[in-house]
């Protein structure tokens, strides 16, 4: 097995992409507004703290992970050219995404606790902080669960990206385009149909959906939400998605282009 070599190769390529993304965001969100303020003569209105207040830095990592996880065909082509099996690619790719999530999640929490909270007094810096943190009375325990909860969210997001990306690579470019066009249309029609039924048909209540969502989200009428149902659900979903991704990797093959 050449898993270590493939892991190193994928990690090197994808960590460079992560740094490039942060560099781009740094320029787009901090440097460019500063330059525009300078050019337009409104430098007094420019506030570094204000620019950093948004949660774009933490959100960007999630978006990056989702985006790269949908793209696996380029790597597959290079690896199969070099005699690397699908199983080794799968194991290495999962390891690399795990490492990236560990790094990105650590950076995100560091940024939240060391930059956002003390400097710009932000509190609702992510889903956990806005809905679940008060469930824990000890701030350190809250921090630990913030790390686990955010990490699990990233894991599920990444695995969803992998399922979508690897599913699409099974098809030709034409079929991929058809799927990408038809799926949102079907989703929109389904959503509209469900919404209209809910509004117009009194017998069509679907209260079980609301109740199930409340249970998963750990909704409580008073006080902070309970994070454990959500965390356990994410674990289960992640396990199921991982099995699906492994299956999809085993079906990868070169397309006739």
């Amino acid at each position, binding site marked *: 097995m050449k898993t270590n070599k493939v892991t190193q190769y994928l990690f090197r390529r994808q960590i460079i992409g992560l740094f490039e993304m942060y560099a781009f965001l740094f320029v787009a969100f901090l440097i460019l507004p500063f330059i525009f303020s300078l050019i337009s003569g409104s430098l007094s209105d420019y506030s570094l703290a204000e620019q950093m207040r948004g949660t774009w830095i933490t959100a960007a990592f999630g978006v990056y992970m989702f985006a790269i996880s949908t793209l696996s065909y*380029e790597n597959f082509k*290079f690896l199969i*050219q070099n*005699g690397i099996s699908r199983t080794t690619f799968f194991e290495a790719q999962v390891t690399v995404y795990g490492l990236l999530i560990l790094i990105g999640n650590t950076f995100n929490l560091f940024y939240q606790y060391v930059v956002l909270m003390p400097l710009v007094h932000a509190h609702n810096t992510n889903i956990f902080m806005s809905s679940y943190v008060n469930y824990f009375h000890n701030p350190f325990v809250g921090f630990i669960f913030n790390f686990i909860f955010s990490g699990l969210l990233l894991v599920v997001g990444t695995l969803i990206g992998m399922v979508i990306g690897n599913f699409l690579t099974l098809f030709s470019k034409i079929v991929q385009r058809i799927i990408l066009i038809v799926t949102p249309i079907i989703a929109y029609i389904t959503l509209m149909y469900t919404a209209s039924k809910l509004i117009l048909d009194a017998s069509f209540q679907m209260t079980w959906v609301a109740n199930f969502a409340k249970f998963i989200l750990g909704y409580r009428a008073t006080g902070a939400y309970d994070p454990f149902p959500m965390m356990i659900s994410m674990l289960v979903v992640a396990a199921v998605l991982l099995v699906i991704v492994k299956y999809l990797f*085993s079906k990868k093959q*070169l397309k006739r282009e």
Partner: protein
Amino acid sequence: MSVLEVSHITKTFGSKHVLSDVNLTFEEGKIYGLLGRNGAGKSTLLSIMTNRIFAGEGEVKIDSENVDDNDAKLGLMYLMSEVNLYADGWKLKQIIKDSESFYGSFNHELADRLITEFGLDINQKFGKLSTGYNSIFKLILALCLPVKFVLLDEPVLGLDANHRELFYSELIQSYSDNPRTFIISTHLIEEVANIISDVIVLDQGRVILNQPVEDVLAKTHSVVGPEKDVDQYTQGLNVIGHDNMGSIRANYVYGDLDDRILPDTVQLSNFDLQKLFIYLTNQYEGSAHHEDK
């Protein structure tokens, strides 16, 4: 001594049968020519052998072990083909470095010499290469990686005559320095006829010829003379084609001749691999059920 075995490989694309029950054995230290007309299934077979695509049925083994999802066995092969599996934005140097890390080593000495001889700029990006240099770069990888089976699918695509000549001489040199198995799929039969030791002809997804070149050529007989005498002499033999030049006729026979007496008016000689290929694949066109193993 490694052996690459292809057993009962079948492949269809939609309703089209591309490969039908293909059985082949590639022994170490030989140079095979894999010949076939366009759409005969050569590239598909090579892609299946290297696990790039899946066969409908059958299996590929190296030393009795299935290559499917098997790093150890897949790492013994390198397929150079016109399909580009390297990203356009990657630098050639980096591709070599990464390929070396996966295969474990790389013959830098040979690569440096080939880079100089072919005049390849190694600092370029892969996507910037012309068709010819694209082939040259992949050929350099194929010759310098430490594999036991080098599979070349249309290796001289886009190469000018000088570079083709250079490639063939380097291929022979590389084989002589480090004997391993080469499988060369090409349409340029005349150019490889003197290089290959064994010839495999695929026609409409079936193997119609698989023998050492020497044995094959020994079975080719060009019977030339007056039409009546030639037809009489070749009666009952496996005539795969003919030419007419005025009153002179040439019948091309593939197979062993019996002890019939050769008339004084008729001349007998061998014909080349390209002619055999043309007549064999024309003969089997539309009625591919003969298999010569």
